[in-house]
């Protein structure tokens, strides 16, 4: 008798915790090898200018400084960092060189790498570098970029980058629609800011002609491929090692200039070199995200049923097109329709370059933004048409019967995705019940002790499980225990536990017999695709199931040989013993002792899985200070199959908190010269424990995905999508008597106060 599915679905305490709780995690900064030199990066102090000269003599004169590398030391051709996602040729002119050589385009752009005996001396060296830059006007705003008066890339002739379009049906419906509304929204520049800054430790072994680099994360295999090309080594001459990773959320682990400069310097000096990004440079060097300005127009019938959606948005990608810098724009174009039936659509999202830090993905890229616009508009439309805010959503949600439901097509890099499965009304109903929507309805707009109360509701879909594939290896050890290797990467989400649960159930063994789950590093499996797009559990988990099935076949075949029977006649019991006809048996440990029982599996995925859900909140707005208190917040998400309710709930709640940060607090501000004004954690404000105490997340698993054998859908991001939309809706509901409509993030106290001031002066306001 075997126990199937005992682990999957249980709130198993994490195996990772045992080392983290005792201070025994090992992050790249924790590696203290002997004979290690330390690097620091000299970054452009100017946002835009011609790089005339770099004088490193004073830096080199400092005792303990070993070398300073600039573009001049890299040879005749400076490598550019290619794109990982959507590498369209039209985007290539905007790629970032690994080090600035002719121009600098943002404050923080690497100009030189100083290598010294200690990190402190390396920084002394950075301070001693003299650079001459002929300043050019900084392009900091959308109008400045669009005017083209100053170009970031002269040869390109424009600051406007190819955009994306989501289209479906025919938007001429707008000519005849009985109701339309057009609105403009903006989202401010902010990003992930994981608690561990980036770090790399590169080691060159001249004898073996082999490079080892610690500090890999997210997509080590892809980064090895890029590095191999840029640095001129074969892939098997490079090992990227993933250590414990202090938070990912999108930006961490992409290929950055330092990912070239460190190994280059290590190889050149034939030394081991460590670079740990400090927080100041983290805030100006790691991918930013989210900044956009979008106009959205929706056409409805008088019952509030959406007839069409159109408009145009612009994403500010900063100074260069980075590895995944186009994803935000693409996703706005796709996710603007969300979980709703939008029969006719034409939505374009362009991109512009400006003299700011380049952008990349941050948890829910494009979706956080698009969902803010769409959900705000639904509330405005409901108000105009005199329809209940929940009812307008019900009338437009794609129903179970309509699935698979084809969404708008996206071009370029064409995609036709389908909403695959589920019942969107279930999560909406649960969410309304949890917040107490009906009981609290009377609070909307009510003033209690000087604060105005309001409720908000919003719905979302979350795409997950991006392909193309993932690899896993499962090995039966000589001890009779099992080891799992997987191409997915850990970024703090607990995959060692989740994969052990999946493998344990598939192997029909307790978790204690899964002695290790090894991930990320490029030595474990033949290829790997990493951790992004809420894909690790879906893709890695499915690959593990394939590997387990193959391993079982292998065990049965080997046992059949030993027991003189066909493989089909062998039964594996409790992952421990192979039993043949007539009860003859052999211990698996014995088999493993004599034969190498290890097999790689894979999973190929062509269709995404679509999790979905709803958010609701209850806020109180202090009209004097503009402060919004979040009195209650709930997100409900159906993630197909819940592997571990503990970690799944953690993903939702953590996502919500990041979304609240982006909605209320976090903002990269620049002055007109392109200087970053929020370059410390005192000025770039992350949410803390006392800001939003009442946050709840509820994962549901009523509708397993038909797209993968695990049945899981990606669940790492849904908690962030709706946050700005639902908060904006609740604030609008609270301040209804002032007719305040939040359209711009962040909803900081001064911003809310300014909105109230403007509303009070407006003649349409009843106040």
């Amino acid at each position, binding site marked *: 008798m075997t126990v199937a599915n005992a682990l999957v679905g249980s709130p198993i305490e994490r195996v990772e915790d045992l080392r983290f709780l005792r201070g025994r995690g090992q992050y790249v900064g924790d590696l203290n090898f002997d004979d290690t030199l330390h690097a620091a990066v000299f970054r452009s102090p100017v946002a835009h200018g011609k790089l005339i000269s770099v004088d490193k003599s004073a830096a080199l004169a400092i005792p303990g400084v070993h070398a300073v590398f600039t573009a001049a030391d890299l040879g005749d051709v400076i490598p550019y960092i290619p794109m990982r996602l959507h590498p369209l040729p039209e985007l290539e002119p905007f790629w970032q060189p690994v080090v600035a050589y002719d121009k600098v385009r943002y404050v923080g752009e690497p100009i030189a790498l100083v290598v010294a005996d200690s990190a402190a001396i390396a920084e002394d060296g950075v301070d001693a570098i003299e650079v001459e830059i002929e300043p050019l006007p900084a392009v900091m705003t959308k109008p400045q970029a669009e005017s083209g008066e100053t170009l970031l890339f002269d040869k390109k002739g424009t600051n406007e980058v190819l955009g994306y379009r989501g289209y479906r049906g025919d938007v001429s419906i707008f000519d005849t629609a009985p109701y339309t509304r057009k609105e403009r929204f903006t989202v401010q520049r902010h990003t992930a800011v994981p608690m561990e800054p980036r770090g790399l430790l590169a080691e060159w072994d001249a004898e073996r002609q082999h490079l080892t680099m610690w500090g890999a994360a997210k997509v080590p295999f892809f980064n090895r491929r890029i590095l191999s090309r840029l640095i001129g080594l074969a892939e098997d001459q490079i090992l990227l090692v993933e250590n414990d990773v202090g938070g990912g959320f999108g930006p961490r682990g992409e290929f950055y200039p330092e990912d070239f400069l460190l190994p280059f310097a290590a190889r050149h000096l034939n030394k081991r070199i460590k670079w740990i990004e400090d927080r100041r440079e983290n805030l100006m060097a790691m991918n930013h995200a989210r900044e956009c300005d979008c106009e959205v127009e929706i056409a409805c019938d008088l019952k509030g049923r959406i007839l069409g959606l159109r408009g145009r948005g612009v994403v500010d990608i900063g100074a260069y097109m980075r590895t995944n810098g186009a994803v935000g724009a693409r996703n706005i174009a796709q996710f603007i329709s969300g979980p709703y039936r939008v029969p006719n659509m034409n939505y374009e999202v362009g991109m512009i370059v400006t003299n700011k830090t380049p952008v990349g993905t941050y948890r829910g890229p494009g979706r956080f933004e698009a969902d803010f616009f769409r959900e705000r508009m639904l509330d405005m439309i409901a108000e105009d048409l005199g329809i209940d805010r929940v009812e307008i959503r019900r009338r437009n949600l794609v129903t179970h019967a309509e699935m698979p439901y084809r969404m708008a097509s996206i071009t370029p890099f064409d995609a036709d995705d389908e909403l695959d499965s589920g019942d969107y009304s279930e999560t909406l109903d649960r969410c309304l019940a949890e917040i107490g929507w009906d009981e609290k309805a009377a609070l909307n707009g009510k003033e209690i002790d000087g604060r105005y109360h309001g409720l908000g509701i919003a719905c979302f879909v979350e795409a997950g499980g991006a392909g193309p594939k993932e690899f896993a290896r499962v090995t039966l050890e000589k001890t009779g225990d099992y080891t799992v290797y997987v191409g997915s990467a850990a970024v703090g989400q607990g995959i060692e536990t989740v994969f052990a649960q999946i493998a344990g159930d598939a192997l029909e063994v307790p978790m204690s017999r899964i002695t290790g789950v090894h991930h990320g590093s490029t030595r474990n499996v033949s290829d790997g695709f990493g951790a992004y797009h809420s894909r690790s559990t879906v893709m890695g988990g499915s690959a593990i199931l394939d590997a387990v099935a193959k391993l079982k076949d292998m065990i049965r075949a080997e046992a059949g040989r030993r027991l003189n029977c066909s493989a089909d006649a062998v039964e594996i019991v409790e992952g421990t013993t192979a039993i043949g006809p007539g009860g003859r048996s052999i211990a698996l440990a014995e088999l493993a002792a004599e034969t190498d029982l290890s097999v790689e599996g894979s999973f190929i995925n062509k269709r995404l899985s679509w999790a979905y859900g709803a958010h609701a909140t209850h806020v109180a707005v202090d009209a004097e200070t503009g402060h919004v208190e979040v009195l209650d917040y709930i997100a409900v998400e159906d993630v197909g199959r819940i592997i571990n309710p503990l970690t799944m709930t953690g993903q939702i709640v953590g996502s919500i908190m990041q979304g609240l940060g982006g909605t209320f607090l976090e903002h990269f501000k620049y002055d007109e010269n392109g200087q970053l004004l929020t370059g410390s954690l005192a000025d770039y404000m992350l949410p803390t424990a006392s800001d939003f105490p009442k946050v709840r997340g509820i994962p549901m698993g009523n509708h397993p995905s038909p797209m993968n054998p695990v049945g899981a859908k990606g669940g790492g991001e849904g908690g962030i999508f709706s946050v700005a939309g639902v908060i904006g809706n609740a604030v609008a509901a609270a301040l209804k008597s002032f007719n305040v409509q939040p359209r711009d993030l962040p909803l900081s106290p001064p911003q809310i*106060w300014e909105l109230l*001031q403007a509303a009070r002066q407006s003649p349409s306001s009843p106040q």
Partner: protein
Amino acid sequence: MKLPAFDYACPTTLAETISLLASSNGEARLLAGGQSLMPMMAFRIASPSLVIDMRKLPGLNRIEIDANGVRLGAMVRYCDILGDERLRTAHPLLVAAIEHVAHYQIRNRGTVGGSIAHADPAAETPGILVTCDAEITVLGESGTRVIAADDFFIAPLTTALEPGEMITQIRLPAWPAARRWGFQEFSRRRGDFAMAGAALFLDRDDVGLIANAHVGVIGVGDRAIRLPQVEAILNGATAVNDAMIAEIEKTTAASVEPFDDIHSSAAYRRSLAGTMVKRALKSALA
């Protein structure tokens, strides 16, 4: 963000400290709790040639309370103030303000001397000192001098402290038991510097009229200031009615001179200062 190189001294007497300061050509910095100086050095905004650690200086960590008021040594930490039961009656306004200072770990090392030497216009300690007519004792080569708080704070990160001088003690005048007081501040997050804050107290004279009103604001200008126009409205009044509160709110907004910065417009801070004074007054009268 490694610190720039410096020499380090850890003197055990005030005399030694003064002589180290004097011989450093103004390039030395005193290290009290380090909660402001260390970040400044980490960003290399401050790069002193010599850091003089005050931790072994005798007598600077004492809190003394008598009929003349409260005397705080320069090395008294925020946690010392919060942990001293006597201060809850000897100076409840000070305690209430200090509860808003930064975070737990910072309060375990940050000192009142360090805070006032740093002179952030939004900081609580300077605000209380200005509001309460505190006196600051400083020691230099030529001896000791006493500076009124209002004269001490000049501009952001700028004080009346001369090169070679160090803060040794702060005296807050005695606190009558019947005094009414209020403290309010608004910051983006718990522990952040205030976008605006108000500290105030009022007494009653022999015939029951409001007297000796002291109203101070922080975070709305280049230093903490008192608002004599607001105090004038309160002094001599028999009671505070809604109309008076409205007038006080308006007068506050009109009397402060905040500037636009990365966190908000001057107009917002002006309004917020009015709100904070109003709320502090209401809590004082509640």
